[in-house]
């Protein structure tokens, strides 16, 4: 039996020591009529067979190395240096559990302590935890933390309509038992003043994203004004960030954010169809005891040597049970370690370069698209690596053409989340997109402008 070392002879000896005759006798507590049900599963395979089957399934997917991808919207194709996978393939890391026994878990603990340190450096916040599940759940946890800071007495949340739609949906799911009033999603997009006007003395927090879901960068002055408006009512200012943008952008710690959350996937992790990802979660020190998630702290051992432990656990479910700040237990530790390796490898110069390359290439792409008749770049605002394009046809049709004729994965169809944005696409460009790929995209869009959609013949991709 695969992965089970004991032989029949050893099992027989063990049964003798236990004092039962057959393994089946160990299950007498299971109600007899329901014992040993049949499992209708495919027959077991050898390793060679299972890999062959999986390779076949994997080959049915078009990956972002086979096709030039201009798709972002919360998951990004940034370069992953080879060292990252090498480190997280160390089985001392990946086959360990949560570091409950610090003496034999110093590797994971120090790596997570350094992750926390680098996230603080990136965001200029006081404290970062060692991860939430992803950007969406980190945002929902920020709301719960803000509620707890206000002892659950304030029930109003202001959220910008350009926070990632899936993050907003997750906030609703998490808080459906909490009787909250969530406002702001019907304010005009990018209108920070309209959001500020919604903050009152019942508001526990306001959430905005920078750069926002549509790629817009808000200046530190604009963000500071919103922070001031929040703080005038003692509401917490929560900012959702793209960590790559912080390669050059002024970090939220500099415009008085109280909680900073974000999706850390782009820091050294493959897009892998949406997960595992990494919930970045950082905040001001004064809120540390209301915060959720694991924190690693520095201490000393019995001989005075430096070491690391999980700390401030009295906030957590295994100690506090129903009074815990969150129910989170398992988090995304290995993804956090991957991101720490990424941040260390890129360093301050490398991360800035990634951000700048993405910025310049995105702007070049937008400038080229603006010249194509029938296409209009709606991003008249400062943007980072994503921008909005009004197209002459439904996005789905354009994307079908791009993949079928050019092997290009097109942008995100914004009409899925914003019904008034029909025929509107969110395009993303990173350091992974060469000029050649961008020029191909331009040519393809020019063909579409020239009526190619009407004359194109559909063929099916390998399935």
């Amino acid at each position, binding site marked *: 039996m695969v992965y089970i070392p*004991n032989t029949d002879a050893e099992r027989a000896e063990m049964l003798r020591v236990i004092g039962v005759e057959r393994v089946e006798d*160990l*299950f007498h507590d299971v109600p007899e009529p329901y014992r*040993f*049900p049949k*499992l209708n599963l495919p027959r*077991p*395979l050898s*390793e060679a067979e*299972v*890999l062959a089957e999986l390779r076949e399934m*994997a080959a*049915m997917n078009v990956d972002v190395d086979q096709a030039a991808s201009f798709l972002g919207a919360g*998951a990004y194709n940034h370069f992953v240096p080879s060292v990252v996978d090498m*480190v997280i393939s160390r*089985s001392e890391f990946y*086959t360990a*559990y949560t570091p409950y026994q610090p003496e*034999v878990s110093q*590797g994971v603990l120090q790596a997570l302590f*350094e992750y926390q*340190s*680098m996230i603080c*450096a990136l965001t200029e916040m006081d404290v*970062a935890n060692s*991860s939430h*599940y*992803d950007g969406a*759940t980190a945002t929902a946890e920020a709301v719960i933390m803000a509620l707890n800071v206000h002892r659950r007495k304030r029930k109003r949340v202001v959220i910008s309509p350009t926070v990632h739609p899936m993050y907003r*949906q997750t906030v609703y799911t998490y808080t459906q038992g909490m009787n909250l009033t969530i406002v702001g999603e019907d304010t005009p997009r990018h209108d920070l003043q309209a959001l500020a006007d919604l903050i009152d003395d019942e508001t526990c927090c306001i959430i905005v994203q920078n750069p926002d879901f549509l790629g817009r960068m808000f200046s530190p002055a604009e963000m500071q004004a919103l922070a001031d408006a929040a703080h005038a009512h003692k509401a917490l200012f929560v900012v959702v960030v793209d960590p790559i943008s912080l*390669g050059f*952008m*002024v970090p939220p710690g500099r415009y008085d954010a109280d909680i900073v959350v974000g999706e850390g996937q782009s820091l050294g992790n493959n*897009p*892998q*169809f*949406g*997960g595992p990802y990494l919930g970045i979660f950082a905040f001001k020190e004064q809120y*540390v005891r209301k915060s959720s998630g694991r924190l*690693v*702290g520095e*201490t000393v051992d*019995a001989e005075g040597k*430096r070491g690391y*432990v999980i700390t401030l*656990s009295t906030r957590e479910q295994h100690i506090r049970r*129903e009074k815990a700040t969150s129910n989170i237990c*398992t988090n*995304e*530790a290995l*993804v956090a370690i991957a991101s720490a390796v990424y941040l*260390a490898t890129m*360093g*301050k110069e490398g991360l800035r370069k990634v951000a700048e390359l993405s*910025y310049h290439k995105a*702007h*070049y792409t937008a400038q080229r698209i603006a010249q194509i008749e029938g296409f209009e770049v709606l991003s008249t605002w400062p943007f980072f690596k994503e921008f909005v394009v009004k197209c002459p046809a439904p996005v789905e049709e354009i*994307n079908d053409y791009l993949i079928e004729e050019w092997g290009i994965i097109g942008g995100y169809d914004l009409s899925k989340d914003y019904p008034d944005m029909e025929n509107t696409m969110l395009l993303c460009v990173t*350091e992974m997109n*060469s000029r050649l790929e961008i020029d191909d995209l331009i040519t393809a869009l020019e063909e579409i402008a020239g009526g190619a959609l009407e004359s194109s013949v559909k063929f099916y991709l390998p399935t």
Partner: protein
Amino acid sequence: MRGPEPTIYEISSPGRRGFTLPELDVPETEIPAEFVRDRLLLPEVAEVDVVRHYVRLSQKNFGVDLGFYPLGSCTMKYNPKVNEVAARLPGFARIHPLQDPEIVQGAMQLMYELQQYLAEITGFAATSLQPAAGAHGELTGILMMRKAIHEGRGEPHRTKVLVPDSAHGTNPATTTMSGLQVVEIPSDERGNVDLNELKKHLDDTVLGFMLTNPNTLGLFDENLLELTRLIHEAGGLMYGDGANLNALLGIAKPGELGFDVMHINLHKTFSTPHGGGGPGSGPVVCTEELAPYLPGPIVDTEEHDDHVHYVWKMPERSIGRVRAFWGNFGVMIKAYTYIRMLGAEGLRAVAENAVLNANYLQALIKDVYPVPYGFRTCMHEFVAQGKIEGAPDVHALDIAKRLIDYGFHPPTMYFPLIVAEALMIEPTETESKQTLDAFADALKRIAEEARTDPEMLKTAPHEAPVRRLDEVRAARHPKLKDVPGM
């Protein structure tokens, strides 16, 4: 091992770099100065610095690949290497979650099949793979129960969730997070839920019961069918905490035992690695009645052009999405691979050997360490007490730390809360008799040391990268980062 490893910042040297990037091949666009930060305090290190730093750190860490890891309730089984190869296939690792479904049919097929397999193994009607971890699955399941009862059945006055005193901390924490109230139910002298106590709380405010079965004592509740009947009669629903599903693969289907919704820890039962604390994956399975409330989208099939097409589908009364995108796909691949490798008989062999190993180990040590429920047959784990006759000052903590010197990861300590000095031991099916014998021997030698040289235990570990750490100091004077210049 060597002394303390410097931090990555202590290795840093100004101007050093460990990366390469393509040259800018398009014209530059000015970045408005007001947006640009004045400092970025990340380290500056070479690639070789990074590699040595993390390899050295890894050497200060214990994992299943190094040895026995009997951490109770965590199911630290061996993580098959084929899983890792599978998850790294470019056609899985390098696909974007928002690609057109027609160009990710292979990934969606894998998710669909896994949904089916998990429902079949557990005896439920439907699955959502979206939750990222066990506790996330709990939140999902309780929110589903809440919505199904408050809205589906029109009984919003039901706000009480009953939780046994042996439950994981996540159960009561989840209940609070869902805006509901926890009522703790004691266990009886056989380690089962105390039905007489339970009956006192069965009124029309009961939303449901959260049960881990086998429970955290490693025991299959002998009154399970009566318990589920009572809850259903009272108008409540049964939540199954699937943390201990390893004991039940091919042994019983929770969906046939009266549970209505359950989460599964792919990172426990289905062999995906724990990653030093995550990522996990916590799919939720449920009955026909609750299926419309599952979070989504989930994968469904449609037939057209003589082909089966996999499509995203939001269950019609869904509680909503519980995270971005579809779930921890990378973890799903590993669980799928495991199920395909084992098949039905292999899965049953997993449970049988897990239970055999636990009972064998219990038999080997119960004369030396008290096992309060040792008069019963345990399932995949059991709870001993770190109490040694003739050594009153020695505690579970000391025994656990001394085990490190013998080359073993300690068991779960001081949990469940209802057993004093608890040592919760889960060997899993992937350990050999030799390993179990060696572990039992170590425990016996430690018991002897406790009487002859208790100081040896009090000051353990002696053979680890660090000595016992000062956790009080860490909490009193929290130092949660170290960034030079900040």
